[in-house]
């Protein structure tokens, strides 16, 4: 299907099913509310076919350009039907499975993720391993029939809901850095896994600590080659900055428009409004070019760090403007709208921290795009 045809027929479907797709909650909503809403929208969109376009047929998709996926995410977000951060896990983890899982496993599992029957999480960061991901120490030891995993992950989004986890483990010697890492696809129901949610600043149990105590993982759950987990991680990261990022640009565009409608007269300075709109526009222009490169089959790489930096900067700028324009509600409002604005403002503070901090992104730009050599 072509993008234009997809755009118009999807629009008709969304209008026709507005009641069935509408969120059951008002205002900020709990994380449970958002997860239930996400599952509902994905199921309806999958069963109607929309959620299958842009994915390969071997994993239950209907084929077609990745632009269709990007547009679906944009359309759902522009109608405020899904939380873009929760939705984006699909866009990040499904491509990884398609590229690295044994074909049979990908064919079984990916449709469950697309349809919203399952939630997956991504076990990367550890207490001692934030920006320096290659130093991770969660250990997987080979047994006769697979792996035994022991260690700890942290900042694992949605682990408390997840049936599966894409997990990075240390399989080489402790100091083997990026050379001794292996990626595994782990069932979260396996004995030995303990999940402890952490309440984040914006009031949601956004992420978790996950403890692995001698957890058995079958050998056929290895993603990619043993010792090649770093490539899995590096190939995954650009997906965080492709379709998912286009969706987040649509989210910022929507919130900025809602802010203009809601802010009392005189609370917003014209030069700031112009500047923030320009930032969102530049982000969307950059991300749009990235979507078209991805759709043309180009391999995304370190240049997507530019997209990520633009996103993080624009997101905080939008919500700084929210804090200025809706100051009364942000500080003292206990109505549903104020609660949502406040939660999203607070969440935006993490935009320069998660998914590779602002500093790490700038290091990547300096080393990989500007060829400035190593920083040590």
């Amino acid at each position: 299907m072509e993008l234009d045809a997809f755009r118009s027929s999807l629009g008709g479907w969304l209008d026709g099913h507005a009641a069935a797709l509408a969120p059951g909650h008002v205002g900020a909503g709990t994380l449970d509310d958002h997860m239930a809403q996400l599952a509902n929208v994905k199921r309806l969109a999958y069963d109607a076919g929309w959620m299958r376009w842009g994915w390969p047929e071997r994993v239950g998709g209907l084929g077609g350009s990745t632009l269709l996926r990007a547009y679906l995410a944009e359309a759902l977000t522009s109608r405020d039907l899904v939380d873009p951060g929760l939705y984006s896990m699909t866009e990040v983890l499904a491509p990884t499975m398609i590229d690295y899982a044994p074909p049979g496993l990908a064919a079984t599992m990916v449709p469950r993720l697309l349809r919203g029957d399952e939630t997956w999480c991504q076990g990367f960061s550890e207490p001692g391993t934030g920006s320096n991901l290659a130093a991770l120490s969660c250990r997987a030891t080979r047994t006769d029939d697979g792996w035994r995993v022991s260690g700890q992950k942290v900042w694992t989004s949605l682990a408390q809901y997840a049936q599966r986890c894409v997990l990075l483990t240390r399989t080489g010697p402790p100091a083997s850095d990026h050379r001794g890492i292996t990626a595994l696809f782990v069932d979260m129901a396996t004995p030995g896994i303990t999940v402890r949610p952490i309440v984040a600043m914006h009031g949601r149990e956004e992420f978790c600590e996950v403890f692995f105590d001698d957890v058995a993982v079958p050998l056929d759950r290895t993603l990619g080659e043993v010792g090649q987990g770093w490539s899995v991680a590096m190939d995954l990261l650009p997906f965080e900055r492709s379709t998912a990022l286009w969706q987040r640009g649509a989210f910022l565009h929507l919130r900025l428009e809602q802010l203009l409608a809601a802010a009392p007269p005189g609370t917003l300075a014209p030069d700031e409004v112009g500047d923030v709109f320009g930032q969102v526009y530049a982000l969307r222009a950059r991300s749009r070019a990235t979507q078209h490169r991805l759709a043309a089959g180009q391999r995304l790489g370190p240049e997507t760090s530019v997209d990520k930096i633009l996103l993080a900067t624009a997101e905080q700028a939008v919500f700084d403007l929210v804090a200025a324009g809706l100051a009364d509600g942000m500080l003292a409002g206990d109505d549903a709208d104020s609660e949502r604005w406040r939660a999203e403002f607070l969440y935006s503070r993490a935009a320069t921290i998660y998914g590779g901090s602002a500093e790490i992104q700038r290091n990547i730009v300096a080393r990989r795009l500007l060829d400035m050599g190593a920083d040590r």
Partner: protein
Amino acid sequence: MDGEERELFEKGLRHATANHTGEALDAALDTAPTTAVGVVLPPLGGWDAPGRVEGEDVAVGGVGTAGLRRHTAAVVVAGTGEGHVAAIVETARLVLRPVGGIDPVLGIVEVAAGRVPRRDRAPAPPAAWPAALAAGQLAIGHELVGAARQMLRLARDHARERIQFGRPIASFQAVRHRLADTRVAIDAAEAALDAAWDDGSPLTAALAKAIAGTGARTARHHCQQVLAGIGFTTEHPLHRYVRRTLVLDGLLGDARSLTRRLGDDLLRSRRLPAILPL
């Protein structure tokens, strides 16, 4: 223009812009028939048409490129109150003041005239002036991006070669992050310009010009700092790009004014334009 002609044109343009500036560049580009008549641009900082129709005459206030003096006639787009006309005036009737200013090499001239007779009264189609302005803003936006990339290249090369504390200053994170931010600002400006060509509206052209002006400011700020002492001398080429981008930012609307105007419009309409479809 077919592919081969376009290639030749591009080659010629590249050669001219790489080897000439100011009046010499105007002369080099004058082989193109489109520049046979001079053009008066809006005054620095502004984007309103440079002329105003007054009866049979036109009042002129704007700037021109160095080559304007060599033309016998110039086009002055002039507002009538309702629309615009493209008036042809005799260059000899205009008061031209060569502008030294911050970038004397550019050689622009300030153009003024109380009232001069206009030869051509054909009204321009309603969208002609906004479209011409938009094309000019995009062209200058790309020039800003080019100059900013050049500043970045100079600063990057310096950072890799300059040794302090026993290692290249490119290894210090404070230096790296300045240049990374410069790269991001330039890439953002280029993406905004490319998208504006696709979009084709005056709004996105003005926006992209503003983003390019802001990006060039970021590049000036960081590259000047990284190039430090040598970059502050006239023995190093940086100052040329600093000067040039300051004037380019002022041509057809500077970033600050364009941004504020956009903000005013958005606050008045309380809506965002639906632009940039995937």
